[in-house]
């Protein structure tokens, strides 16, 4: 058996097998398995020097061929029914399918040669078209937006901002802020008492939501009372405290 054909020419075990069948002028349907297996093994003997990755695929096929060969060499069981399968059947199917696609690949190749004779052109979009910017259709853009929706959106933005504040830390923050010093509060109250003769403690506390601020305000009142700058009266326990300024306006 001469190995005239270059080994690299085979794209896989099936390709090699088809080549051997053609070379021996035998039918796919009636593979002389002994002969073909021997030839196949000779080929891959030659290939051993080559890449093992490629080899492994060829070796699988070699094993298959040897398996088929051994099956065929075994004495056949007495012919019971005609159902007895040719051990080569599966390989035959595989070879047929492979051959079919191989054939179609040649067909495609011809098509490609023809198709290559057709030339296309690159897009030539005129600069005027390229530069065109679609005008914004404000009416369409604002179609779903109503004022109340805009209002809701703003409120939910604010709510989200509120929620984002770390509760524990923000408390710490307030403590710091509430280091409103007593003297600051007193200065404020003195100023206030200059323009207001009578005022109530509760009224004074409006807008001073934090406990600390209320406490400092209370302390300031006490301090100013001690200094005689204001006088306070309270009818009953927990009632509002009425404050009277003793400072001349």
């Amino acid at each position, binding site marked *: 058996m001469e190995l005239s054909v270059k080994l690299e020419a085979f794209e896989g075990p099936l390709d090699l097998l088809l080549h051997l069948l053609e070379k021996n002028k035998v039918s796919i349907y009636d593979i002389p398995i002994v002969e073909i297996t021997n030839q196949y093994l000779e080929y891959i003997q030659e290939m051993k020097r080559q890449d093992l990755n490629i080899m492994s695929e060829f070796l699988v096929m070699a094993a298959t061929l040897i398996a088929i060969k051994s099956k065929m060499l075994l004495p056949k069981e007495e012919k019971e029914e005609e159902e007895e399968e040719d051990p080569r059947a599966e390989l035959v199917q595989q070879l047929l399918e492979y051959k079919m696609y191989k054939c179609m690949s040649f067909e495609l190749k011809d098509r490609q040669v023809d198709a290559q004779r057709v030339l296309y*052109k690159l897009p030539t979009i005129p600069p005027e*078209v*390229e530069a*065109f910017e*679609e005008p914004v259709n404000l*009416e369409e853009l604002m179609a779903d937006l109503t004022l109340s929706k805009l*209002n809701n959106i703003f*409120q939910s*933005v604010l709510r989200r901002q509120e929620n984002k504040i770390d*509760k524990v830390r923000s408390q710490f923050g307030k403590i710091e802020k509430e280091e409103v010093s007593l003297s600051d509060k007193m200065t404020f109250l003195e100023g206030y008492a200059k323009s207001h003769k009578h005022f109530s403690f509760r009224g004074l506390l409006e807008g001073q939501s934090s406990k600390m601020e209320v406490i400092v305000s209370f302390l300031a009142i006490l301090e100013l009372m001690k200094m005689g700058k204001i006088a306070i009266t309270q009818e009953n326990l927990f009632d509002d405290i009425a404050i009277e300024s003793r400072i001349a306006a």
Partner: protein
Amino acid sequence: MEEKEYKTAIEAILFTMGNSVELEKIAAALSLDMEKTKEYMESLMEEYKSMERGIQIVELDGAYQMCTNQNMYEYLIRIAKQPKKHVLTDVLLETLSIIAYKQPVTKAEIEKIRGVSCDHAVSKLVEYHLVCELGRLEAPGRPMMFGTTEEFLRSFGIHSLEELPEMNPLQMEEFKQEAEREAEQEIVTT
């Protein structure tokens, strides 16, 4: 070879090249003399013109180019420019609502409220003519202040910003209290 075939070849050449092609080059490709080539070229141009096609051949200083008929711009724009769908995304809407209620407002203030950068959103709103620059704030960095436009009012059919729905004070109070309650709970549970 006949005139018809030469003209067909010229057509294919101009199409493939896209750019302008000098008569000389065309003549060489066809193995024809310049005179004949020019004759066929002119005949082809005449054909194109008389058939009122969407493509025309124009002469540019001894070179020839295939291009579309000018009347076709409208269609070309519609196909070459994928219609950009302008939509007010959530980000844009939020930014717009902040600007509407807090104007004049700087980007830094918007970012403080939304917690994220607003460059893109603001410039989109400016592009849509809903928001405009109002001038710079006299503060470090002299940041630009933004406000809503007349277009903005017009698209809501209102005449002034005072007609914007008021921020519901009760609701605002609720937010605060809610936040405080949560804060207290947090402290209790920790």
